[in-house]
């Protein structure tokens, strides 16, 4: 990542660092500290090479790429459906949401995104929001753990365990879900699943309130997070932040409201946004987003329509096996889908979905046929991390963990 040499001075911590700069003669030499890629606070494999002046950071260079797998290139060599398992491994804390975002992007390319059955759309919204609750629970727990409150982390993990059980019942896998298919879903909801889900929404609401009691008015937590890592409105826009980090800086922008996809326009929910853009605001937003997600989940359970979950189009969705064995046309469809993939039209398409970490976008450039010519993944964590080298200088060493925790990034997505 490129170094930013000219630092815009804004908050008090930076000013104090500047004041120190004026006393250059009195200073000793600076210390270079390598933080990561294997460090408890860098959530995965982020590496920061820091220049420290005592406990104050004078320069921070994020080094990324330790988890680079070349997902974008891999996508060029397989059919659209085959790439779905790779999307699990982008933001591995919210694989369901990645599956949905990717499927929607390809469906937009195929021109079938508005023809999806209602039930499919509702189930996909449930998936997205379940993933959001799961990712925020982890983000919150990890953030609390980074500033030293270990108990919150264990409590949120208890709730995530329930989500994983639900996901296991839904998809057969706990972590690598691969749930969506182009034009539908791999399977319908299992029997009794919605009851389990509504039981979970009640339990998770209690857990969220419990975490709220432990942190929101905790003096030490507030001291550690308020006024730390302030990202102003302008900075948030300039650096292209998305998701809770953008909304923390007092910008009400959520793709679910701004460009509603699936059935978000039929659902009633609020978008929280912060005032100052500090770590505390970002924390509060994640808390509130979880409550809103629970609200959405409850509405989806109530409104869930019956009907098919897949598009009725043999050229896009794999036909039922029984029909493949008994009917010629379905056999041909299956053969074509397996060997060639969906025959997408030539063209370019971009679709961004509001994922837990921000806008996960898939830009697909197709020359026609079953594989993309080029696919670009806009990973929110990658963009969000770009602000680090700008934001960290001037803060204390201990603030790094608070800022990293509040930015809530996933390296699987950042490095792709």
């Amino acid at each position, binding site marked *: 990542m490129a170094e930013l040499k000219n630092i815009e001075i804004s908050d008090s911590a930076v000013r104090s660092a500047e004041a120190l700069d004026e006393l250059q003669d009195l200073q000793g030499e600076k210390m270079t*500290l390598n933080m990561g890629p294997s*460090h*408890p606070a860098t959530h995965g494999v982020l590496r920061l090479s820091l220049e420290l002046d005592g406990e104050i950071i004078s320069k921070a260079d994020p080094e990324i790429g330790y988890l680079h797998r070349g997902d974008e290139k891999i996508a060029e060599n397989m059919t659209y459906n085959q790439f779905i398992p790779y999307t699990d491994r982008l933001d591995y804390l919210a694989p369901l949401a990645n599956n949905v975002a990717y499927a929607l992007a390809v469906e937009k390319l195929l021109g079938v995104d508005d023809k999806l059955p209602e039930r499919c759309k509702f189930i996909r919204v449930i998936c997205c929001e379940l993933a959001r609750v799961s990712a925020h629970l982890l983000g919150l727990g990890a953030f609390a*753990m*980074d500033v030293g409150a270990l*108990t919150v982390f264990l409590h949120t993990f208890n709730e995530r365990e329930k989500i994983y059980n639900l996901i296991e019942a839904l998809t057969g896998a706990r972590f690598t879900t691969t749930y969506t298919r182009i034009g539908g879903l791999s399977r319908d909801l299992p029997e009794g699943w919605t009851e389990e889900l509504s039981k979970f929404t009640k339990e998770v609401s209690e857990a969220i309130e419990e975490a709220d009691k432990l942190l929101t008015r*905790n003096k*030490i937590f507030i001291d*550690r997070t308020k006024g730390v890592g302030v990202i102003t409105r302008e900075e948030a826009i300039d650096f292209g932040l998305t998701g809770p980090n953008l909304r923390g800086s007092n910008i009400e922008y959520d793709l679910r409201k701004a460009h509603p996809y699936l059935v978000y326009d039929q659902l009633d929910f609020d978008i929280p946004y912060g005032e100052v853009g500090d770590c505390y605001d970002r924390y509060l937003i994640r808390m509130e987003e979880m409550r809103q997600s629970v609200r959405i989940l409850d509405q989806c359970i109530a409104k869930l329509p019956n009907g098919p979950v897949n598009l009725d189009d043999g050229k896009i969705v794999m036909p039922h096996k029984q029909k493949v064995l008994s009917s010629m046309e379905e056999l041909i469809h299956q053969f074509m889908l397996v060997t060639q993939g969906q025959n997408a039209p030539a063209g370019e398409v971009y679709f961004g979905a509001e994922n837990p970490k921000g806008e996960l976008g898939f830009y697909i450039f197709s020359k026609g046929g079953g594989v993309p010519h080029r696919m670009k993944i806009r990973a929110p964590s990658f963009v969000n991390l770009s602000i680090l080298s700008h934001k960290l200088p001037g803060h204390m*060493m201990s603030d790094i963990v608070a800022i990293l925790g509040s930015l809530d990034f996933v390296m699987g997505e950042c490095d792709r």
Partner: protein
Amino acid sequence: MINFVTEIFANYPWLMVLIKVLGVFAVIMPMVAYSVMAERRISALIQDRIGPNRVGIPFTRVKLLGLGQPLADGLKSFLKEDFTPAYVKRVFFWMAPAVAMIPSFVVFAVIPFGSFLGAQKMVIADLNVGILFTFGIVSLGVYGIVLAGYASNSKYPFLGGIRSSAQMISYEIAMGMAVVPVFMLAADSAWQSNLTGTWKNYLDGVGLLNLSSVIAYQSDSLFSWMIFKQPIAFCIFLVAIFAETNRLPFDMPESETELVAGYNTEYSSMRFALFFMGEYAAMIAGSALMVVLFCGGWTLPLGDFFSTPAETLIQGIIHIIVFIIKIAVFLALMIWVRWMLPRFRYDQLMNIGWKRFLPVSLGNIILTAIVLWVTA
């Protein structure tokens, strides 16, 4: 036979001291081991987990609620590879764990952990400047950590060492200031000369700064405990003990999310375990100090049996048990706080120490002085 034994003890007084030292050590070491165990079980309780509940008597199926766990932990740390990185300053690197651990044990030398067993006063060294000795020794604890940070020759331990030196120095001052009012009340020769009976015997020949005189002062009733007479001093002392023992919310030196493991990052095996034991021994020593200074020591305001020095063996043993239970209560408090609170930032910690606690404790001294002057 009995004559022979008493003769030996009369001729070699250090023999009695040696027995006391061994006795205290035999109590403290298991307490250290089981406070680690208690930490793990209580944290599990708080975090909705189960905690270690499997290890019981070796080679049997008896689990005993996992009470064998400390033994297994100790054995494990002996069996781990004792790795010394190539770039460390070897002598200091080897010395640091011992230097960190010894002071926390030495503090117990002056702590009166009971009244009498037979004719023996239950304190190893009945110093007339007990409290000064404690502070002197407690401050030595920082050297182990600083030395570990320096000797590791690595950046994270270095930062941990630097932080701890600053932290411990600043909190020692607040701690010392907090104790001054306690002795302004207790170290009063007029009050001490009025003592009668066993108390007179108990305090025979000790100076005004001796820790057992503080206990004597608090023995009358529950409200003569310093915790009620000097609540401000108690709060400051409590927080300062947290900071001195590097417990959350003040565990700057090893704050594991920023400094990996702080000063003990480069340590492994038994040397790491020594730091660990040193930390818990320091917790016990701190709790013992709080019990002695603020919570009546081994006394309980439940009648003469509990609140006057023992005349029988059983009474003496019960006094020791009361003292250990009081320590356990404080240990539980420290463990509970650790798992409920986040960690302060380094500069905030220094702010609290210097800008809040120091002025407040100074004010408390002046307030106490005024009250004493008015009432005298």
